[in-house]
C-alpha cells in the first residue's frame, strides 16, 4: 500500500466514523432538537408534563377571540389531527392571522373545558411559498386551509 492510498483510506474511515457518530448522537437527542410540539403530540402526552414548552400549529379559522379592553387573545392551534386552545396576553407578530403557522411558548394548564395552553410568547412561522397577492388570491380555497401545509410539520410524518 502506498502512503497515498493509506491516507485516502484513513480519511475515508474518518468521515464514515464521524457520520455514524453524528447520526447516533442526533438520534439520541432527537427530542431536544424539536423546536416545538404539535397539538396531536401534546394530546398524545408526548410533551413534557408540568414544564414549559413550545406548541406549534395553524391558527384555526374563526377561532380568534380578542378581548375588547385588554391585549388578551384566545385562539385554537391545530394540526391535521388535533387542536388545542391557547390564551395569550401581549402584542402579536404582524403575520398573526387565521390560517397562519404559529409557535407559542408557555405551559399547559387545565381550563374549563379540558386542556388549555397558556402562552407568554407567540412567534409566527411562515411557510416556504412566495407569490404575489394576486396569485395567492386566485389559489385561495373558500374555507381556507384547515390543515398544516406540507413543510410545516414534516418531522411528524417521517416515522410513517
Amino acid at each position, binding site marked *: 500500500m502506498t502512503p497515498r492510498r493509506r*491516507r485516502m483510506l484513513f480519511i475515508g474511515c474518518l468521515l464514515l466514523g464521524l457520520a455514524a457518530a453524528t447520526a447516533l448522537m*442526533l438520534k439520541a437527542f432527537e427530542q431536544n432538537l424539536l*423546536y416545538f410540539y404539535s397539538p396531536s403530540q401534546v394530546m398524545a402526552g408526548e410533551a413534557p408534563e408540568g414544564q414549559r414548552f413550545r406548541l406549534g400549529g395553524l391558527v384555526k379559522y374563526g377561532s380568534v377571540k380578542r378581548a375588547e379592553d385588554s391585549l388578551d387573545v384566545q385562539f385554537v392551534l391545530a394540526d391535521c389531527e388535533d387542536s388545542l386552545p391557547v390564551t395569550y396576553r401581549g402584542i402579536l407578530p*404582524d403575520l398573526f392571522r387565521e390560517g397562519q403557522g404559529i409557535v407559542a411558548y408557555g405551559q399547559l394548564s387545565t381550563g374549563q373545558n379540558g386542556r388549555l395552553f397558556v402562552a407568554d410568547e407567540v*412567534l409566527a412561522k411562515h*411557510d416556504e411559498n412566495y*407569490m404575489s*397577492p394576486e*396569485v395567492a388570491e386566485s389559489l385561495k380555497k373558500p374555507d381556507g386551509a384547515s390543515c398544516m401545509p406540507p413543510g410545516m410539520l414534516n418531522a411528524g410524518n417521517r416515522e410513517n
Partner: protein
Amino acid sequence: MKTWFHQWGSPPHFYERAARWTPWFSVLALVTLAYGLIGGLVLAPMDYQQGQGYRIIFVHVPSAWMSMFIYTTLAIAGGIALIWRMKLAEVYIAAAAPLGASFTFLALLTGSLWGKPMWGTYWVWDARLTSELILLFLYLGVIALYSAIEDKRSAARAASVLALVGVVNIPIIHYSVEWWHTLHQGPTVTKFDKPSIDTAMLLPLLSMALGFTFYFAALALVRMRLGLLQRERYSRWVSDMLNQSQVKS
C-alpha cells in the same frame, strides 16, 4: 489531464493564469448581480404574506447557499491537501475560509433582520439557526488553526482535518428543517417538486446566487494569488518575476 493538473498545480503558472481569469469572473458577477438586484428589488411583485419585507430573501438565501457551498469546497480541498499534498489546495483553504465565514455571518445577520419583522424575534435556538451558527464557528476554527501555526504546511494540514470533520454539519444544516420541527421554514427552491415561488421572484434569486458564486470565484483567485505570493516570497519564481517586471518598467 494529468499534465493539466500538474500545470495548474505549479505556483508560477497559477499565479499568472489566475490574474487573467479574475476580470472575467468579475464582469459575470457584476452583470448577474445587477440583474438580480433590479429584478429582486423592483421588478418582482411583493409577497402575499410578507409584503415588501420578503425581499431580504435576495441576499439572505444566496449568502446561506454560499456559506454551505464554500465549506463543502473547503472539505474537498482539505482532502486533496491531505492525500496528494497539493500546495494549491492548501492555499485555497486559507483563501476561501474567510470568504465563507463572511457569507455565513451575512446569512445569520440578514436572517436575523428578516426574522424580527416576520417571526417576531431576531433569534431562536431552533435546529436550522443553531447549526448555521456552528458553521460560523467551524469557519473561524479553520481560520484560527491556519493562522496560529507558524509552519504553513502543518497549519494547512491541521485546517484540512478540521474542514473535513466539520463537513458533517452541512447535511445537518440542509435537512434540519425537514428532520425536526423548526421555526425556520422548509426549502423553497431545492425541494424535489416544483419550487414554490413565483417565477418573477425565482429568476432574480437564482441570478443573485449566480452572482455570489462568480464573486466568490473572482475573489478566491485574488486571495489565492495573494496567499501564494506570501507563502512563496523567497522562492525562485517570485524573484524572477520581480526582476522581469523591473526590467520592463
